[in-house]
């Protein structure tokens, strides 16, 4: 459709027409000053991948320490720093940025816009997120990272218990990267509400865009309380305030409410965009329209609102009243209804289709088969009395990794395999994709499956060692083995990204025979995305174009 010549991703969109620069400097200049949503999106993704490697190394070190009971590979405090940094990194500097990055790249293309609503705010959001991450890591240079756990329960974060400056770096880093996230969220909402192509009503949004909209809304609700809580920590630590200083009338309980009021919606911030990506991939590779779009859309909104009222299910052991316990348990179980609806709709979309198992679909099937398990263990954890046993045990660790890797990561890989050709103009290697998939799939099950067992056998999380008589050694050894099997899968992925970018088969505009607007422009798209803004009549504009005899808008 677009006639613009395919531009190389590292060459397009220089916004300075003035000075002449060459080579590396020119490239760096282009990328650091870019306000193009596609380049910013790629920057987000690259940042996440770097942090993913760092967080992964931290995990491997911990698994080494836990391989033998009473091993002395790492000092206790080092181990505690590692799990704090691992959790913080994976949630704030891998999970969120990679999804925001994909959203950044795709939303304008999918709604037929030329950029995000506020391009400069967009660049600001990225850079401040990156600086936030660097600031948290800078704590290492001050004599050690924070050892407070990623949810940083007060009063362990007070000066009395966390004396070095590491905790301040942690709080400041999250604070400013949170501002970046809020900036991105505002931008998504404005872009999606105001910049859709002619004819694309809110009811005709591609499903991924719909989920990004609600993810952004959720970010706007969830991050301000975290920001406030982080400011309170900094006040306590730097200005002698007593918000969480129990000895002086502060409250440890307050922190938990503030943190989880952010922390639970955060889980959905990390999964809703993935629901969106899966809802793009499954139809295209099953060759069928998404089953029950309206119900899927309504389920998304239901998840957003219900999940904002369930945060205290992380706090069932703090001794709330039984009534409160029950309210939060019931609310948590309610979330499973819209989530179930989504699942059934995905299965119904596949049903009767003609399924191609190219890499995106492979990862999507990985997502479907694994995420359901994470959802079900979530239901077990929401069953309050059972949570009295399982809370803060390795069962929980197994559960949320199942959701975050089996769900978020598999789904994100599906998305990256699906859209990489659009971003670079080249296909990723399918052979490497299969290696990556199976190593990850097997390694993942072997890593996190046994964690459920060790948790049920009484092993609490965040312990740097355990006695040999506890019967946990075998399960921990299986977990470590699984981690070792997973490791090469990430290496293969990174290799695939780099090698295919140089030598992959050219993709063309529409390699998957897909249906949404991003596939109408070149791969990679020119800086202005579309030569002329497309006019849309249905949720699948390219289906209409490819099947003029039987267009979608007749049925929607």
């Amino acid at each position, binding site marked *: 459709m677009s006639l613009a010549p395919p531009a190389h991703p590292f060459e397009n969109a220089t916004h300075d027409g003035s000075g002449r620069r060459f080579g590396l400097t020119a490239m760096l200049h282009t990328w650091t000053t870019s306000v193009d949503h596609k380049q910013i999106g790629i920057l987000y993704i690259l940042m996440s991948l770097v942090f993913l490697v760092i967080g992964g190394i931290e995990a491997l070190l911990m698994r080494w320490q836990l391989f033998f009971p009473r091993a002395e590979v790492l000092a206790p405090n080092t181990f505690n720093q590692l799990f704090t940094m691992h959790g913080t990194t994976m949630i704030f500097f891998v999970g969120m940025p990679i999804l925001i990055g994909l959203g950044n790249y795709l939303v304008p293309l999918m709604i037929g816009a030329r950029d995000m609503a506020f391009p400069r705010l967009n660049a600001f959001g990225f850079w401040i997120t990156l600086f936030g991450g660097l600031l948290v890591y800078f704590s290492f240079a001050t004599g050690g990272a924070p050892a407070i756990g990623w949810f940083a329960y007060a009063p362990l974060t007070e000066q009395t218990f966390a004396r070095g400056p590491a905790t301040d770096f942690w709080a400041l880093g999250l604070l400013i990267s949170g501002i970046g996230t809020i900036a991105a969220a505002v931008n998504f909402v404005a872009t999606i509400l105001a910049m859709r192509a002619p004819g694309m009503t809110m009811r005709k949004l591609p499903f991924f865009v719909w989920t990004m909209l609600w993810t952004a809304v959720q970010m706007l609700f969830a991050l301000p309380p975290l920001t406030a809580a982080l400011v309170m920590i900094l006040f306590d630590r730097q200005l002698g305030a007593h918000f969480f200083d129990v000895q002086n009338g502060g409250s440890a309980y307050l922190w938990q409410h503030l943190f989880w009021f952010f922390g639970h919606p955060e889980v959905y911030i990390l999964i809703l965009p993935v629901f969106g990506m899966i809802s793009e991939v499954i139809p295209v590779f099953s060759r069928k329209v998404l089953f029950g779009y309206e119900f899927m859309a309504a389920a998304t909104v239901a998840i957003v609102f219900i999940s904002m009222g369930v945060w205290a299910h992380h706090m069932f052991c703090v001794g709330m009243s039984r009534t409160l316990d029950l309210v939060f348990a019931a609310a948590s179980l309610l979330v499973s209804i819209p989530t179930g609806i989504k699942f059934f709709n995905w299965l119904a979309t596949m049903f009767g289709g003609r399924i191609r198992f190219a890499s995106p679909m492979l990862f999507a099937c990985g997502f479907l088969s694994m995420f359901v398990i994470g959802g079900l263990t979530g239901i077990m954890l929401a069953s309050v009395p059972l949570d009295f046993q399982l809370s803060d045990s390795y069962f929980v660790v197994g559960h949320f990794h199942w959701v975050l890797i089996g769900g978020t990561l598999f789904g994100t890989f599906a998305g990256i395999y699906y859209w990489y050709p659009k971003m670079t103009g080249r296909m990723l290697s399918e052979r490497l994709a299969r290696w990556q998939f199976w190593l990850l799939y097997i390694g993942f099950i072997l890593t996190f499956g046994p964690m459920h067992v060790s948790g049920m056998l*009484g092993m*609490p999380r965040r312990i740097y060692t355990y006695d040999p008589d506890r019967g946990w050694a075998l399960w921990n050894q299986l977990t470590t083995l699984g981690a070792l099997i997973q490791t090469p899968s990430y290496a293969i992925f990174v290799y695939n990204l780099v090698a295919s970018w140089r030598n992959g088969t050219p993709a063309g505009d529409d390699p998957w025979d897909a249906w949404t607007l991003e596939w109408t422009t070149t791969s990679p798209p020119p800086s202005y995305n579309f030569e002329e803004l497309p006019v849309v009549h249905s949720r699948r504009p390219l289906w209409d174009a490819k099947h003029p005899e039987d267009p979608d808008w007749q049925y929607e």
Partner: protein
Amino acid sequence: MEAIHPGTLLAASETATQNLSIFAPASPAAQSIQDLAILTGAIFALILVLVEGILLYNIWRFRARAEVTAEPAQVYGSQPVEIAWTTAPTLIVFFLILAITRTLWQAKAAQPAPQLDDHALFVKVIGHQWWWEYRYETYDGRPLNFTTANELHMPVSETGQPRRVHLTLESADVCHSFWVPRLNGKMDLLPGRTNYLMLETELPGLFLGQCAEYCGDQHANMLLRVIVEPPAEFERWLANESAPAAENVAVQTGREAFMAESCVNCHRIRGTPAEGTFGPDLTHLMSRQTLASGEIPNSPENLTDWIHNPQTTKPGCLMPAFDLSETRLEAIVNYLLTLR
């Protein structure tokens, strides 16, 4: 990595692997939680088989075959089907909420006030970085008023004669969590809040657990030991613990050394000038099987190593090393060894 940690000896001295499984309940509360676990597990398995079954069927039955090239029929949705698969999970959720409510009321009961002849033990548990303080308050309505540490003794219940143990949970510093899986679910100890937990079992013996809320450097070695004894034995233990520390002229030099060192700032030995409360009460140290909150067996060698330098056994713990001379160390240890 090569160094053998004293903790491994603990394993050697106790022959079998310990059982801390939530599926080996030894109390009514743990039992009802196990029942709920099995129920949710069964529902879990059913849904799992259903979903994975449909998924596998789809993958196998609808995989693209070379012969067919036309697009399959496009199905946009179906309201009755959507309503059906909204209703089914809703019913399951409703059923689960009922089951949860029942178990919740069984597992988490309000704490009664102590009464004469109630056969109940009341203990206040205070979490410290990284050890447990137990203040025995009343048993059978009798006031007790002594403090011990790290090993909780309780009487066994008999059919028809429950001997419940009501724990009041508080924290002296950061958040901790009391978790002995076979006796009950966990309950957090938060500074500034008071929580309650009830233990009750008809099984005598040793029950293990540990702190389940990350509380700093030595969270991993904040172990819990609950020793459940027949009533007579428990009464004997109570009588011994209530008494002040044993005095023995043979260890007079050790006693003087202890009282002269800063030990007294952190440790209490009832009946002596040592009145510190920052560390565990040592009045009847030798009645305990372990040291350092269950980390190492209570043997003379371990005790000597501990006092020589606690930081090698429990790096980061809040008792510093004192550089005691060989003789002084030996004297103090000899004194402590008499605190039965």
